[in-house]
C-alpha cells in the first residue's frame, strides 16, 4: 500500500507505442494507466507480465516492472512472481490466442489455484500479430486466412472456462467504454484472488468491427447490460428491459408489459459462491439476450499464495531446524 498520489502520467513509459492506428489496445492502455493511480499500490511493487501477441506488448508501455515472456506463458511467469514475492501487485495482459490456445492449460490452473493476480484478456477473436488466422474465440464459420471456407471449430467463451475452473472473479467490458474499463480494472485489483477481465477488443486490421453489434453507439444500450452487485438487472435505451429467471433459464422481459414490475427483475449477486447464475449470465448472447458487462462473479475463496505463506509460518514455528547446517546434521549421522 502507498500514500503516494499518482497520476496517469506516472505510469506511462518512455517507450514508443507501436500498435496499429485505431487499435482497441490504445484505449485499454489508457484505462489501465488511469486505473493504476487508484489501486493504492506503490509503483515499485507493480509488475506487468505478458505472453506473445499484440496485447503482450503491453508491459513495455507501462512504467512499472515487466516481463514480456513466451507465447502462452504469462500465467506461469506471473505465478512464479506472485508466489515467490506475494507483496507484489501482478498483472497479466494476454489475448484470446495466447491464453485460450497455447496457454489454455496454464489459464485454467491459474484459476483453479486462485493465485492473486489480475488478468486482462484482450479478446479480438483473431490472431493479429501473425496477421489474421482464426483463434479459439473466432465465431463458427468465419472466413480467415487459415479458414478460407469458414471455420469448422466451435469457439470457446472465455467466461465458461473461468466458471468451469471455479474462478473467483470474472468481469467483461468493451474497449469502447473507458469509464467502464477503469471501474472494472479497479475492482479486479481489489479482488483477493485470480481476477479475469475479458475486454472485447477490436482489431482494426484483421477483424474490424467483430464486436460492433455489441459496441456500436446505436445498439449498445440494448445489446449490453452493465451488471452491478446488489442492483437490478435492468438495461435498454429506455432502461425498461430486465432479466428474469424462468425455470433454469434466463429471459428478457420489459417492465410494464404483461404485468412485469421492477420487483420481478433479478438482482445481481456477484458474491454468490454458487456460480450457476453467473454462468448463465456470462453465456447470454445476441440476438436473444444482451451481452453481460461488469463484474459478473467476485467471490472469496482460499488464495494460493496466502495459504502457502500460512503453511510456511506454521512449519517454521514448529520446526527445530533453523538453517541448512541444522538440517544436514539432523537425523541419522555416523561419527567415524
Amino acid at each position, binding site marked *: 500500500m502507498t500514500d503516494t498520489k499518482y497520476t496517469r502520467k506516472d505510469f506511462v513509459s518512455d517507450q514508443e507505442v507501436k500498435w496499429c492506428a485505431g487499435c482497441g489496445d490504445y484505449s485499454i492502455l489508457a484505462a489501465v494507466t488511469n486505473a493504476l493511480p487508484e489501486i493504492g499500490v506503490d509503483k515499485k511493487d507493480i509488475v506487468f507480465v505478458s505472453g506473445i501477441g499484440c496485447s503482450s506488448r503491453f508491459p513495455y508501455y507501462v512504467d512499472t516492472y*515487466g*516481463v514480456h515472456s513466451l507465447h502462452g506463458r504469462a500465467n506461469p511467469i506471473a505465478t512464479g*512472481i506472485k508466489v*515467490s*514475492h506475494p507483496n507484489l501487485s501482478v498483472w497479466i495482459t494476454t489475448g484470446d490466442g495466447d491464453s485460450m490456445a497455447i496457454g489454455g492449460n496454464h489459464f485454467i490452473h491459474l484459476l483453479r489455484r486462485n493465485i492473486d493476480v489480475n488478468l486482462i484478456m484482450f479478446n479480438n477473436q483473431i490472431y493479429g500479430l501473425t496477421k489474421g488466422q482464426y483463434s479459439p474465440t473466432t465465431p463458427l464459420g468465419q472466413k480467415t486466412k487459415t479458414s478460407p471456407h469458414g471455420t469448422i471449430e466451435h469457439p470457446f467463451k472465455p467466461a465458461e472456462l473461468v466458471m468451469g475452473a471455479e474462478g473467483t472473479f470474472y468481469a467483461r467490458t468493451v474497449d469502447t467504454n473507458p469509464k467502464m474499463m477503469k471501474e472494472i480494472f479497479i475492482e479486479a485489483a481489489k479482488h483477493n484472488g485470480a481476477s479475469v477481465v475479458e475486454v472485447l477488443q477490436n482489431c482494426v486490421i484483421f477483424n474490424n468491427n467483430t464486436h460492433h453489434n455489441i459496441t456500436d453507439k446505436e445498439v449498445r444500450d440494448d445489446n449490453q447490460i452493465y451488471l452491478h452487485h446488489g442492483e437490478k438487472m435492468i438495461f435498454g435505451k429506455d432502461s425498461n428491459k430486465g432479466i428474469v429467471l424462468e425455470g433454469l433459464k434466463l429471459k428478457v422481459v420489459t417492465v410494464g408489459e404483461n404485468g412485469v414490475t421492477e420487483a420481478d427483475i433479478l438482482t445481481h449477486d456477484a458474491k454468490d459462491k454458487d456460480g450457476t447464475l453467473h454462468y448463465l449470465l456470462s453465456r447470454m448472447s445476441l440476438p436473444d439476450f444482451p451481452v453481460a458487462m461488469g463484474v459478473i462473479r467476485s467471490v472469496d475463496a482460499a488464495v494460493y499464495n496466502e495459504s502457502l505463506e500460512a503453511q510456511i509460518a506454521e512449519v517454521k514455528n514448529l520446526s527445530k*531446524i533453523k538453517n541448512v547446517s541444522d538440517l544436514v546434521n539432523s537425523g541419522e549421522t555416523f561419527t567415524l
Partner: protein
Amino acid sequence: MNVVEVEKIVVKFAGDSGDGMQLSGTQFSDTSAIGGNDLLTFPDFPSEIRAPQGTLSGVSGYKVHIGEIDIYTSGGAADILVAMNPAALKFNMHDLKSGATIILDSDIFEPKNLLKAGYESNPLEDESLSNYTVIAAPITTMTRTILKETGLDTKTIDKSRNQFASGILFFLLNRNLDEGIKFLQQKFAKKPELVKSNVNVIKGGWNYAYNLQLIHTTYRVNPNLNKKGKFRNITGNIATAWGLMAAAEKANLPLFLGSYPITPATDILQELAKHKELGVKTFQAEDEIAGVISAIGASYAGSLGVTSTSGPGLSLKSEALGLAVMTELPLVVVDVQRGGPSTGLPTKTEQSDLMQALYGRNGEAPMIILAASSSSDCFDFAYEAAKLSLEHMTPVILLTDSYLANGSELWSIPDISKLPAIKPPLVKENVEGGYQPYLRNPKNLVRNWAIPGQAGNQHRVGGLEKNDVSGSVSHDPLNHAKMVELRAQKVEKVADYISKQTLNGPKSGKLLVVGWGSTKGAIFTAWNQLKNEGKIISSTNFNYIMPLPSNTEEILSGYDEVLVCELNNGQFVNYLRAKFPKIHFTQYNKNEAQPFMVSELVEKFNETLEAL
C-alpha cells in the same frame, strides 16, 4: 567356523517390488556405515510400481557395496545374493561372482513360481547352482511360525520375510545384530507392533543360521580407517536438494522450485517440499513448461529460481531456457538423466542428454553445463550451479542421472559456514542515472540485477532481442550480432571462475581415459586397478562441460590416444572433437541404460593399451 576378512563385498537384495528389498538394503547399508565401512548403494527397479508377482519383469533389486577400502562404484558382480523368489534368482545369475553365496527362500521354489520365472527344473534340485554356496532356508514357513501368535494377518507376516534373510546375512557377515534391530525400531517408530514382529523375525533368521551350522565360513569387512569425521548416507537427489538450499541460504535469497513430477527426478521436488521450515517454496506445476517458467518468474522477482526434471521434461523446457538466456536471469535446471529417447527407460541410467543440454534450443543460446560425479557431490555441484547462475546471471543445467540420483554413499557432512560466498550482482534502489538492465561488468560481462520492489529501477525484460545496455527492444542487425557475441563470451568467461581440470597419472603417455559425470567412480577404479598392476595409463573426469576448464587442451594433449568412455553413443567425444581437432580421440560407449562395470572398463583399457 572360519572367519575370513575381506576388504570389500557386494551384496545384492532381489525380490518382488513389494518384498521390501529397498528396506533390507537400507538397513544393511546404514548398519555398515555405523560399523565404519565405506559404501555405495544402487537400487535397480522396474518402472512399474507392482509388476506381476514372481515374474522376471517384477524383480526389484538393491545393491550395496561396502569396503574397508574406499568405494567408488556400486560394485561389479555380487558376492552375496539375497533372492526372495525364483525370478529374483534367475534375473541375477548373470551378475554373480563364481562361488558367490546365495540366500534364498526354499519355500517359494515350487512349480508355480518356477514356471513364472521360466525355470524348466528346480535349480535347488538340479546341478545348476553347484558353483555357488546356497543357503536355502524355508523363510516363509519360519517367518509364519515365528509370528503365529501375533494375530497379524498372513499378508503382513509375509512382509517380514526380508528380515529373516537379513538375520542370516547379519550372521554371515559377522554384523552387530543390535544395529539391525535399532534400524527397525527407528523405521517403524510409529508402529510398535511392526517393530516387535520384525525384530523377532531378524533374530529368528540369525538364530537359524547359528543353530543349524549350515554356514562354515563367515566374512568380516573391517572399518575403513580413511573415513574420519561425521558422515551420513545420502542419495544424489537429496544431496542435490540440500545443495540448492545451502546455496540460497548463502546468497541470502529465497529458494523457489517450480517442477513437475518425473522419474527419476521427483525426489528433488519431494525433498524440497518438506522444507518449509527454511522458507523453501515449491510449486508443483501443471506441466514441465509451467515448472520452468514459474522458476524464471521467481528469479525475475529476486529468488533463486530452480526447476528439476529428466530428459523428456528438458525437451519441453527448451523454449523457456532460451528465455532465461535472453533475459539473462539466474535459473538452475537439474536434469536427472534416464534412458532415452522419448519415454525410454524411466528408471534406468544414461548420459544421453548431453547434446540436448548443450544445444537443444533455438538460436545461439549458450549456457553453463555442469555434471555431478557421485551421489554425494551432487551437493557440491548443485551448490556450484546455483553460485555460478547467480553470480553470472545465466541459466545453468546440472546433469545428474538415475545412478547418482537413487544411489547413495557416505557423505562427509560439510561445515555449511565454510562454503564459498555467493554474491549475486544485485543493485541498490534508485540506481544513479537510471537502471540499465543490460549494463555489464566489463570483467565478466555480467549484467546488473534489479528486482521488483526496488524504487526507481522499473524495467522490462523479455524474449525479444534487446538493445545493448538500455535493454529496449531492438531489431538492429549490428546490435544483434553484438548481443550474440556478448552472451557467448559471458559464458566462456566463466572458465576464469571454475576449478582447473585435474589428472590421475602421468601428464603424457600412450593412453588417457576420459569420462564425465557419473562414470567417475567406475573409470577411476578401473584406472587404479591397472596402475596397481604396473601399467602406464592416465585418467581424468569432467564436471565442467560448458565452459570446459581453461587447461582442458593441456590435459588432453600428450597422449597417443584419448579414449572417451560414456553411457551414450558418443556425445561428449564429439563435443571434444569439435573443440580440439588435433587430438586423437577414440570412444567407448555403452547403451544398455546401466552404469559401467569396472571389469568391462579394465578389459577395454587393457585391450587399448595392447593395441598401441
